[in-house]
């Protein structure tokens, strides 16, 4: 859309109007009896989203419950991680889910089980034990730093991450 702000109905009389000086109030120019909140546009540099399949043209099929197509269009660059790479042209294949056209996508990365530890589209369930571990780690800065070291900084790539969380074999299937 490339507009600098959008009007939003709601928010007025909430404390968001106090803590967010960038949220403004305006009389609706088309009906001055109404006061309306304005919020600034968010223009991300990069969007990252996960998909079911991607092809070499950048087309990605993802879940219809995600806002992938929206964030891809809002951002300067969009990176899709996908469960599978497709050799053909996904725009020419029947599919369920939502197709994010390649024109919105800067890069497609093959990352099976890439939604871990969350569930993805019925392909795999949530890893509840891992989420519990994360919640526990989030209780203190030291524990969280250790979590980051173990699962983020301490693994050189996605394959090593899968190895660490015990999913290397499952992802290879």
């Amino acid at each position, binding site marked *: 859309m490339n507009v600098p702000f959008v009007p939003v109905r*709601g928010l007025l009389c909430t*404390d*968001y109007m106090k*803590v967010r000086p960038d949220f403004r109030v305006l009389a609706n120019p088309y009906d001055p009896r109404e006061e309306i909140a304005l919020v600034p546009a968010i223009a991300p540099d990069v969007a990252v989203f996960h998909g079911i399949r991607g092809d070499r043209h950048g087309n990605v099929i993802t879940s219809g419950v995600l806002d992938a197509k929206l964030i891809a269009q809002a951002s300067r660059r969009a990176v899709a991680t996908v469960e599978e790479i497709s050799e053909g042209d996904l725009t020419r294949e029947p599919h369920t889910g939502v197709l994010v056209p390649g024109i919105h996508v800067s890069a497609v990365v093959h990352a099976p089980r890439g939604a871990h530890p969350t569930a993805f589209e019925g392909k795999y369930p949530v890893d509840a034990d891992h989420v519990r571990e994360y919640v526990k780690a989030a209780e203190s800065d030291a524990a969280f730093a250790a979590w980051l070291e173990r699962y983020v900084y301490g693994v050189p790539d996605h394959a090593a991450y899968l190895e660490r969380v015990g999913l290397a074999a499952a992802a290879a299937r």
Partner: protein
Amino acid sequence: MAPAAEEPTRAEVMAVAIARRLRDGETIAVGSVSPIPAGACLLAKRLHAPGARLILLGSRAHFPFNGGVQEFYNYAVRGRLDVFFASGAQIDGHGNFNLSVIGDYDRPTVRLPGGRANGILSFVAKRLILFRTEHSRRVFVPKVDFITSPGTTPEGIYRIGGLHAVVTDLCVFEFDRARGRLELGTVHPGVTLADVESRTGFPLHAPSPVPASPTPTAEELALLRGPVREELGTFYPEFVKQQS
């Protein structure tokens, strides 16, 4: 399936109290982390509201959109939701609730995830029902730390919906919009007015005597413990496990 004669749990009493407020043909949406309202919707659909249109975030079977949360949101802000459910980390007697932060906004002791939708959806959903499984003085406070949603708003502000009721593990509060305050509606079976009073941090406005919340019927319990539980388990596996 447990025998229906078995005493209902507090979660079952809450689900039934919620289910009986839902009407046939309504469009009813439940946000994330809300297993009790989701169970109540699945129950109502099997009983008196077969024509209800359910939007249950997290469920694949009950998410009738393919354009993400954005599409749900656009649908909601057009005033299409008859009922929407939220929780409340803090709720005060004026119907303000806080799902944003506990403590100071910039240095909170807890930062909560419910702010992004509720500052808007509470203006457009016709009947907003809050549910809370912990009825205590840290939840039902004299004044919320942060107003995520105001109970009432002055004229000139677009508001086509708002707070309708609060269902807790002890009772049901009704929101009186004209008076701008919560009023005790019913207390759950086995709960006394004194129990509610001692665990509520604002003065109670209660009818005398206080009516009792509905006692779940054998049919309701059988459904909750059978097919509702099974369906709920497809998108709230952890919650269902904890209920056994």
